[in-house]
């Protein structure tokens, strides 16, 4: 879960990382007196706010008012700005870069430091890789102060500044550990004319799988890039307080006309690739796995299929190892399907394998005969990806029959 700048700074501040004095406002009335110099910073999850003109240094009240007015309600990469951070302006002497994040090469948290901050670290790295210093953190020992000093020294820092920066970075590591962060990035890490250090920006990403250890942290739901749809929020609710299997934890609404109920983290992306290749237009992406109970799949089925303009549906997965196919398809999918109004008459292609698959297929065939569903059922003998084309052909016939183009 990516945090807004002001939220990230709250966490940094709680472990003693110095951040500039500031406050968050949500409307013009809250602005009040804003004596300059003040920095007006639109709160958005996407990066490159500076380039988009969403951060401005204001000398007086009039400038601050104008800046807040300009950014409140504005859009940044699809996200509407609803909060603005007002911060004390600093007399900046130097800007550095510091980050702790997971690295898959060393399978460790990695400290990254660069003397040159305030700009895109990827660009600096591309031009001058030697300037970006790294130190993997062995969790048997944690980040040792000498490792931080060594990294800073290699970057060219010395004297009292080395001591001060080492202290700053050690506190960033404390934040990373304390809150189970995936990333703690401070860019720029500012040194003022007075010689003080401040985190002038903060990109903090929390590990969602560790949130149970941090019940005291309360951050509203968010989706980088855009506001979540009603269905996306509903789907997220399914897994809440029910750890049996994983259902709908990823659900994304898409503009197409084919409902997707995929199974398995890997298979679900294989089948989306196949759908793309075959030219089908998915109405959503979602996935369930880990032998979930029927009622969870039933809920997800209703979210996927309760859409007015569907012309087909694909219930698809690989050959399951331990997911009960009867439970997920009959107590889950079929039960959910029966509640959709108006009753879907479009083709539904089902491809699945695994425990109790034959039993499930028999029950589906019986339901189709009795209740008039247009099921097309395939077991593991038919390859998963080939059913994409089977479905798209059926959808095209259906659309023609309906006079749709």
């Amino acid at each position, binding site marked *: 879960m990516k945090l807004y700048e002001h939220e990230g700074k709250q966490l940094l501040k709680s472990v003693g990382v110095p951040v500039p004095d500031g406050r968050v406002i949500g409307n013009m009335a809250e602005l009040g007196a804003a004596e300059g110099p003040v920095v007006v910073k639109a709160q958005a999850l*996407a990066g490159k706010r500076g380039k988009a003109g969403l951060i401005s240094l204001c000398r007086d009240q009039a400038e601050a008012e104008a800046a807040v007015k300009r950014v409140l309600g504005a859009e940044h*990469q*699809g996200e509407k700005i609803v909060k603005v951070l007002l911060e004390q302006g600093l007399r900046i002497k130097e800007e550095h870069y510091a980050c702790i994040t*997971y690295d*898959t*090469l060393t*399978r*460790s*948290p990695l400290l990254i430091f660069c003397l040159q901050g305030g700009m895109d670290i*990827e660009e600096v790295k591309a031009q001058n890789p030697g300037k970006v210093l790294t130190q993997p953190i*062995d*969790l*048997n020992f944690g980040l040792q102060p000498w490792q931080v000093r060594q990294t800073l020294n290699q970057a060219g820092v010395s004297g009292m500044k080395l001591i001060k920066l080492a202290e700053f970075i050690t506190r960033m590591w404390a934040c990373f*550990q304390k809150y*189970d962060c*995936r990333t703690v990035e401070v860019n720029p890490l500012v040194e003022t004319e007075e010689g003080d250090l401040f985190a002038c920006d903060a990109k903090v990403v929390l*590990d969602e*799988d*560790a949130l*149970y*250890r941090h019940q005291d942290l309360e951050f509203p739901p968010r*989706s*980088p*890039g*855009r506001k979540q749809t009603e269905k996306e929020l509903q789907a997220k609710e399914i897994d809440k307080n029910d750890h049996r299997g*994983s259902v709908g934890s*990823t659900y*994304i609404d898409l503009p197409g006309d084919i409902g997707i109920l995929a*199974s*398995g*983290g*890997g*298979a*679900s*992306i*294989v089948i*989306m*690739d*196949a*759908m*793309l*290749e075959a030219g089908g237009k998915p109405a959503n*992406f979602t*996935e369930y*796995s880990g*032998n979930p109970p029927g009622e969870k799949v039933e809920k997800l089925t209703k979210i996927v299929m309760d859409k007015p303009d569907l012309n087909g549906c694909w219930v698809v*997965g*690989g*050959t*399951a*190892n*331990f997911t009960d196919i009867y439970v997920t398809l009959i107590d889950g999918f079929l039960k959910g399907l029966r509640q959709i109004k108006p009753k879907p008459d479009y083709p539904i292609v089902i491809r699945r*394998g*695994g*425990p109790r698959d034959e039993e499930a297929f028999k029950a589906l065939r019986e339901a189709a005969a009795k209740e008039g569903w247009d099921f097309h059922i395939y077991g*593991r003998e038919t*390859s*998963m*990806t*080939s059913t994409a084309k089977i479905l798209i052909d059926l959808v095209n016939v259906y659309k023609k029959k309906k006079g749709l183009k």
Partner: protein
Amino acid sequence: MAILVTEKTVACVQGITGKEGSKAAKQMRDYGTKVVAGVTPGKGGELVEGIPVYDTMEQARREHPQINATSIYVPPAGVKDAAFEAIANGVSLVHIFSEKVPIMDAAALYHFARLKGARVVGPSSIGILSPGKGKMGSIGGSNPAETFQKGHVGVISKSGGMVRELSWLLMKAGLGNTTAIGMGGDIIAGSTYTDYMELFEKDPETKAVVIFGEHGGTYEQQAAQMLKAKRFTKPLIALVAGKFAGTLPGSVQLGHAGAIIEGKWGTTESKIEELKNAGAHIAKIPDDISDLVKKFA
């Protein structure tokens, strides 16, 4: 031969008294694995499927000194503790089935295993299966023989469903596995493609290796680099999924925790490109696998 799970494997199941844990213990034994003990703190003295349950790993090992492998089926919050207990007590192969393990815990137990010379498979791993020898975990469910048979192909997959699907495609074409492994799709994996490739390289029975990868992370790139550096010399057949993810705006995680594209890192296209340049044989869809493997195995 096979890797990791062989005739010499003597297994324990941590969390054997839970629903999935007890099922797995039974399946493992039914498939020929020696499952001699279970560990669930507080439930020592019970029997699950006739298998004795102990309160601690130390006690289990005292009664059954031959235990050399464990499968962990405990809730995510207890995984790190269970894995540390196993490693500290000298268990050399630690398979973790549990999903949604905090990243910090996964990294910590990987580092501890490295320190102690143990091997971790997972978290979020469906298991390890060597046809004719046995299995650790839920891989293949209660009827592995439906989709796995003995042969000369090693399979390594981030996805548990796909390891079964790919092995099934091989079986349909008359091919089979030495060992099939679900490595898990988390950001930090206890063992990655290159760790397993090193073992397959040394296994005389394995003639080719199939890997299933996804967008996100760098493990596929590392496999490509190993191949390029000729530290792996057998044919490598790769299927990397996730093109669709690249068409979505922003950094959206699809399916597995590690399947997330951040910036330019970890796109499916870049992984395929690197693997191809390193000399891997690329499958576009699962159905391509058997034709690509046939020439070698």
